[in-house]
């Protein structure tokens, strides 16, 4: 496996009675993701109904198995075997790009101007910069269907808000550090809000539940207020509660 992974990796780390942490990489990189999605698929095949959960995230995969049927030692042997013949997911490398429509507007994206100021750009340039790249979903977490995507252009890099909002509206599209995300539901949140998507990001009645999955490629597409409303978006402006 030399050459494919950084020195000393991949590595299997103990994660409790029923888990192993598979560490493949040591830095965040979009190129990690075809390896991680391949590993997810291989684990599903190899572990079958001994598998309880898989949590892929940036550089790692947490494998959770049924400790009544499999000991950590047995699980480790399966993982070692599987890692030896792991190949990156070629399909994932050029997976179709999912488009997320976004209404970029100060009324629903109060930090648009903050990003513009930090980057020394106009609002239009910020929108252009946020929409011209496609992003990779690195991880889902924080809340159901909340996808951490990157990497955002370095010029749009912005720290989180000093005081998180208690209520971020569902659909809010946001930037923090060099990552971007859309809030699936109303939650607290400290990211910089730049717009809002009418897309339903998490739906308990939909096959697969989450619109976005780890490894997916995503591009934001700017739409105007009328189109946003037509697609079912909530046009009510942000109410500040901080």
């Amino acid at each position, binding site marked *: 496996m030399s050459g494919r992974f950084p020195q000393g990796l991949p590595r299997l780390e*103990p994660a409790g009675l029923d888990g192993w942490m598979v560490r493949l990489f040591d830095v965040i990189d979009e190129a990690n993701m075809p390896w991680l999605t391949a590993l997810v698929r291989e684990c599903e095949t190899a572990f079958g109904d001994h598998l309880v959960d898989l949590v892929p995230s940036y550089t790692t995969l947490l494998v959770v198995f049924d400790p009544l049927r499999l000991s950590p030692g047995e699980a480790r042997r399966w993982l070692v075997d599987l890692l030896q013949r792991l190949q990156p997911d070629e399909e994932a490398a050029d997976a179709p790009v999912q488009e997320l429509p976004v209404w970029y507007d100060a009324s629903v994206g109060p930090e648009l101007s903050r990003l513009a100021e930090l980057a020394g750009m106009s609002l239009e340039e910020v929108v252009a910069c946020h929409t011209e790249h496609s992003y990779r979903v690195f991880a889902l977490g924080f809340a159901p269907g909340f996808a951490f995507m990157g990497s955002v252009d370095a010029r749009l890099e912005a720290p989180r808000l000093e005081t998180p909002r208690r209520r971020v509206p569902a659909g809010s599209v946001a930037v923090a550090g060099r990552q971007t995300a859309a809030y699936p539901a109303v939650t607290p949140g400290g990211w910089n809000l730049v717009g809002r998507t009418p897309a339903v990001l998490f739906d308990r009645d939909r096959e697969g539940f*989450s619109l976005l999955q780890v490894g997916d490629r995503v591009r934001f597409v700017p739409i105007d207020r009328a189109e946003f409303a037509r697609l079912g978006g909530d046009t009510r402006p942000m109410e500040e509660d901080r």
Partner: protein
Amino acid sequence: MTQAIDGAIDGLSVTRAGPLALLQDAGRFGVRRLGVTQGGPVDLHGWAWANHLAGNAWGTPALEVTFGGLELVAERDLVLAVAGADLSATLDGEPLAGWRSLSVKAGQRLAFGAPVNGLRAYLAVAGGFAAQPVLGSVACVVREGLGGHDGQGHRLAAGDCLQVTPRRACATREAPGEAPFDYRRPAELALLPGAQISEFSGASLFLAFNAPWRVDDRADRMGVRLTGPRLDCRMASMISEGIGLGAVQVPPDGQPIALLNDRQTIGGYPRLGALTPLACSRLAQCLPGQEVWLKAVSTDRALEAYRRFRAGFAR
């Protein structure tokens, strides 16, 4: 609105909700990669016993009653069992015996008072509570708005009527003498050392396993903060990665947090390791201010203890 469930009928109605009562099955599995947490009973041990005493299979939904305060009226004759904490439960005002199954007549009033021994009681009815599964489970996670008696992740409220899947009375079951135990004693929490353990200073590692920890009042179904000596770790934070049940993370303030069933699915603080499932159960019964000790165990020992525990319950 509660959807009709095949074969389910009104079992118990809620006349007073108390601070927190939630319907829990074994947990929500297979969807953690979507950011959906595990949920399920934080004291798996007490929950499993309540179901077992009521003659139910593993995974049957039961009520988790935190702090007490819940009051229910039986809508029909039922067989039920209470295990876990002693929350001064009464039946029509008379003390109700925990850790055994008992018959209740329609119209009888079941009330939980204040905690006497432990923090969370589990109430199971023979045949099980019935609710529509959401994402494969009825585990109630308030933060995510998933599961529970109404499918929307709500805690019980006065006026709710809990559905049950009735089953003919079974033989009365009683826990053997050793099952109910004293949750007020200092708890020894078995911990499996994790990958970042070598990042902690030697002095911190010594203190972690040789000093008493206090359960902080910042404790809930997501996690329990422990206060005690400050633990120093060379790593301040990591790239976020999946977090298992019982992971003991140490943020820069040096005070560990044991992560329980409703934890977020990923996180980026270094970890001492992971509490075993039974240690999580034990911690879930500790009140703020209580003393606990961390004790490193080998995987073999922990696996053996867990398999022994599970072997007693029908799958």
